[in-house]
């Protein structure tokens, strides 16, 4: 049995059912005047959801029929992998937290300050300790990009707490 395929198959099947029963009825507005089935706004989406149901079931079936042979070496590697995976999971959680912080504070901190903080944090999460490079990079790159977009493309970025400070 292929665990990934079984999970994916179940997920796709459930998602297709969710589309048919909840997402399409509540998410797609079908006007009362839409009498022609093929031209209705939900016609195409229902076909896609139907196709997803079929593909989900096929992947589930494939997953159930796949035989995975686990060798001794694979078990030994797996133990090492478990330890790596824990570290990986923590780092992955950290990266997602940085993404959330970056987006969540962009209106308050602004793009430049938010980017500087996110770049520094992301670099730290990588295990980088050469702060004499990280700090100037975290400051200079967002400022350079800010002026590049402002001067070349006339796109002002939200500045948040730096609004009106110095050249911003």
């Amino acid at each position, binding site marked *: 049995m292929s665990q990934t395929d079984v999970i994916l198959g179940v997920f796709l099947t459930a998602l297709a059912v969710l589309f048919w029963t909840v997402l399409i009825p509540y998410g797609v507005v079908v006007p009362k005047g839409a009498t022609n089935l093929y031209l209705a706004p939900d016609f195409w989406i229902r076909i896609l959801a139907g196709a997803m149901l079929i593909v989900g079931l096929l992947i589930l079936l494939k997953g159930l029929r796949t035989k995975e042979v686990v060798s001794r070496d694979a078990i030994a590697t797996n133990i090492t992998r478990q330890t790596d995976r824990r570290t990986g999971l923590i780092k992955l959680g950290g990266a997602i937290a940085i993404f959330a912080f970056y987006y969540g504070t962009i209106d308050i901190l602004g793009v430049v300050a938010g980017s500087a903080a996110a770049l520094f944090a992301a670099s730290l999460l990588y295990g980088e300790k050469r702060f004499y490079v990280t700090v100037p990079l975290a400051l200079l790159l967002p400022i350079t*990009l800010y002026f590049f977009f402002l001067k070349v493309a006339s*796109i002002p970025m939200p500045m948040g707490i730096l609004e009106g400070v110095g050249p911003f």
Partner: protein
Amino acid sequence: MEQLLSSLEVFLTLDNVGALFFGVAIGTVIGAVPGMTATMGVALALPFTFYMNPVTGILLLLGIYKGGIYGGSIPAILIRAPGTPAASCTVLDGFPLAQKGQAGKALSMALYASCIADFVSNLSLILFAGVIANFALRFGPPEFFALILFSLTIIAGVSGDSLLHGIAGALFGLLFATIGLDLIYGTDRFVFGYYELQGGLSFIPVLIGLFALPEILNHYWTGAHMRERSSAGAKEMVTWQELRSSMKTILRGSLIGVGLGAIPGIGGAPAAFLSYSEAKRSSSDPDSFGKGNLEGVAAAEAGNNGVCGATLIPLLSLGIPGDVITAVILGAFMIHNLKPGPILFQQNLDIIYALFIGILLSSLFLFIVGSAAIRGLARITEIPNSFLYPAVLVLCVFGAFAINNSTFDILIMFVMGLFGFALQLCRIPAAPFLIAFILGPLLEDSFRQSLQLSAGDFSIFLRNWICWLFFALTVFSVFAIIRRQFLP
């Protein structure tokens, strides 16, 4: 001959040559920054052309257009963040090559393929504009539907080990493409009260999210950041032998680009993917595609640059802009009281020929600018991951915001990043998602427009030989896919 000499006289001024060269250089830089597209570059430069001679102004815009399309391949190869939708296909083999320490080879192959395809496309524009424009004009919604349906069979070529996983990815792409206002009734589809979603999901945030962010997350997840990439061969360029062996692929991709580019509304991305799929199908080593095959880079870039000259065919010969960029260029013509179409060929032949000379020269300028750029840029792979990927994250955020001046697009990018990472974990390739996301609206719109035209009569889909041809090709492709997948 006399006309040609007079056109040469019109073209050969320092202003014209300088504007073209400057345009190509600026376009390359703009295309190389994720979030800044060739369309944006051309639109920004348009006001500067008001005070220029018409030929100078239009050449500046054409230079930016061509440079921008090529420039998109640079971040696609180096940091897995395609600068333009058309460059998303280049990611498939370009980035794995850069990871193997062959960024120089990937960048130079992209450059050579782009220049050759651009030249072929320009020649087609000059020699066959009339014939191709006539063919392109026969494309109504049913022909469009048949063509797009055929293009969707490309998905099989980029699905990797499992076709079912590829189809699942494509279904996600088609579903994501339905978000926004309905084309016919103007009602909401999956908008859920967010007015920002009414225009649908923007391409660039989706592209960046789907490719660049999962790569960053993957580095944290697998600990790949602990291992530095090989950069030993970063400065090594493509050899003559390698270029020669990819020449057939480049020429085929160029012709695909010309064919699709001449049809209004198609764009470079489908051409790149179709060219890639054909290259993989006819390769003696198809399994190496997607893992860092130079021919894959050549096919993608040839397809997407082959479109450049061809999109000008309907513009110059009929006055119909094929995409947003040519619509802006049409604006530049009109500002100077020039009306593209048959009359322009009668009344301003010297200007047309001068533009043709400039367009041909742009391929050479692209080569010069590109060669200079890649020598410096290939060294990006020498930057340690712990600095490079955080910097890429910041670049992605700036790029996503710049498209619509909207922080909502940053949210879309992050959500797509997490979605792309989930796809990776489920072994669903990103390319089928992207192809379907790009082609989805075209497919649905042409399907519904056709049925609207015929009042629900399905026989409209078989109204002429073009429809028959593409349906036959689709059936043939599906049959070939089934045979390859399920029969020994």
